């Protein structure tokens, strides 16, 4: 039986090592430029680091992929093509791309380079996946997190293209490649600049009780502090006080930065008179409980999300998924979710619940 592959994220060289040492079959990286969807300051690899990453992967008999999946505009095509040339020079095993101009360039100039269609292509049906194969010889498509398991099974049965699905990590509610919310609020988005809700647009104002988060002057959230005592500084902790624990040991900026995504904001639905987190739940994607089913319907690879996360995450997440996959193949009938994996997940993703997203229904 062909074993499902495990493809893992790395935002820097240490993360590459962590993923490889913990059982990744392939590691995917991005260059430090707007050519990929995690174009954050201090993240991604220089050419020299990427060269080392390729050497490390190949020494272990593993694969390295480069992500070039933003959509180049008017004056950006040449730099996208240069990134492809660089990836080829590194000897990478595939590039993960979205834009047709990039695919056409690869077919013309590097016909042997395998093309993996990025999740940003939003390829949610066999017809579209077959379009990529027939027109650009795409080898693999990363499915968007919009499909049920039954729909994935239908796709697998109706294409010869290898199918990769997200197994672990962030769970965006948007249809990949078709979300312009960040562009609407900030003028930059994943498609255009490789960045969703860039922290540089984030601002917050704190008063005695609350913290108001703003993204480019638009209020995304008001984190309400203590309503029982005089101020959040004196609060001893009570249900509903969202900011206290992040304040008492000093300011934790990452708490705010992680709440910057527009879809995770708090809004008022004026039509039905509700207020709350109306778009997004505080969840992460965790498919450990349906791993058997995903393997049995014939998916070819599992992807762990999270190039933007710390290198330790790349190691931990890879190890958990590796153990789970190996556990399944050791004896499919006896596969069960190990409580230790779940315990580790709750440390990796504090205060977040696990979800299978749309896989079991929407």
């Amino acid at each position, binding site marked *: 039986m062909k074993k499902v592959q495990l493809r893992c994220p790395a935002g820097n060289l240490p993360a590459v090592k962590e993923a490889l040492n913990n059982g990744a079959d392939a590691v995917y990286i991005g260059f430090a430029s707007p050519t990929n969807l995690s174009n954050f300051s201090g993240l991604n690899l220089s050419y020299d680091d990427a060269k080392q990453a390729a050497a490390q992967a190949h020494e272990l008999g593993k694969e390295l992929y480069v992500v070039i999946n933003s959509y180049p505009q008017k004056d950006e095509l040449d730099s996208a093509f240069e990134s492809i040339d660089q990836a080829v020079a590194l000897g990478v095993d595939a590039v993960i791309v979205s834009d*047709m101009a990039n695919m056409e360039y690869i077919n013309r100039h590097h016909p042997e380079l395998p093309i993996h269609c990025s999740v940003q292509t939003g390829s949610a049906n066999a017809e579209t996946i077959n379009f990529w194969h027939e027109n650009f010889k795409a080898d693999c498509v990363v499915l968007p997190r919009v499909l*049920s398991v039954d729909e994935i099974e239908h796709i697998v049965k109706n294409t010869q293209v290898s199918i990769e699905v997200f197994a672990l990590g962030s769970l965006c509610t948007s*249809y990949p490649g078709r979300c312009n919310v960040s562009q609407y609020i900030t003028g930059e988005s994943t498609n255009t600049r490789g960045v969703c809700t860039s922290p540089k647009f984030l601002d917050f104002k704190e008063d005695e009780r609350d913290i108001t988060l703003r993204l480019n002057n638009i*209020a995304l959230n008001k984190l309400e502090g203590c309503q029982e005592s005089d101020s959040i500084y004196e609060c001893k902790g009570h249900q509903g006080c969202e900011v206290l624990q992040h304040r008492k040991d000093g300011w934790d900026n990452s708490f705010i930065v992680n709440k910057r995504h527009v879809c995770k904001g708090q809004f008022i639905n004026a039509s039905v008179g509700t207020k709350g987190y109306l778009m997004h739940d505080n969840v992460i994607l965790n498919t450990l409980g349906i791993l058997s089913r995903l393997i049995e319907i014939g998916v070819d690879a599992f992807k762990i999300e999270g190039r933007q996360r710390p290198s330790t995450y790349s190691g931990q997440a890879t190890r958990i998924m590796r153990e789970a996959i190996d556990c399944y193949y050791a004896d499919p009938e006896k596969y069960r979710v190990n409580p230790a994996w779940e315990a580790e997940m709750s440390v990796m993703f504090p205060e977040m619940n696990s979800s299978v997203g749309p896989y079991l229904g929407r």
Partner: protein
Amino acid sequence: MNQDKKINIAIGPAPYNWGKPQLLDFYCRELADTNVQAVYIGNTICHKRNILSRDDLRKIVAALNNRGIKVYYSSLALSTTSEEFNYVKDVAPLFDGLEVNMLGFFNMLKHDEFQNLEIILGPYLNLYNWRSAAYLKKFKPKRLVAPFEISLENAADIAEKSQIPIELTAWGNLSTALSWRCYTARAVNRSRENCDNICFKYPEGMLLKTVEGEDLFRIDGLQVQSAKTHCLVEHLDKLKENGVSTVRIYPQLGHTAEIVDTLAQVLEGKQDAKASLEYLAPYAPSGFCNGWLWGKAGWEYVAA
């Protein structure tokens, strides 16, 4: 480039879930005396809203064709089932053409019954540069509807270098995101699978405000739109200078005919753009925006 030619007006596919009587009234009566050259029909967001029968569609196409208007079917932007594909295959031949919003629909065009359809490259195809657009010239597109978020400069570059006429959205609540989740169903504690077409109760979508009370988004089922109305009435001359062939007006519940008429008057030089903006203000209850045209945040408004 289209600099010397007249800019045409097209009516984009109706958003929300208006119900059959409202849709028939809109296409057969409200648009009857408007100065439009093309109309797009079909729900790009949710297949469950495709409630018009083949006979209804034939009737609408005939009524509009009689007035010299081309009628296109707009495909879904996100399709995950065979049923949805088969529906498009079934109804597309009733129309003059097909707006393709998902690449998979191109596979369908190999078959004879679709050979005579005029092809429009839809805004959800993510054609951000001229090379990608030019790749699709093999399908002989009549024109390309620019992705919502690209600037006029980029749109003009695509049109000039790909030599595909370009259509730009000039009026409407902008599509800012599609989701696997139905936000309308979620707002009333229903799942997408068991929504019972609850969006029918919200023919203007659901207004989302910020925690400070500012209008920010409009919920349209699986789609999140801008609450503000994207309006280019002050910049129609710039569109002409940049070779735009067609402007798209997204319909809204009521007053679409007045909006079309106003833009048509400005395009013909019969009405002042600034005065028109004032006239149109009541039809944009959350205010105007057009920042994307200038490479800015979409919610901003740049005056002429």
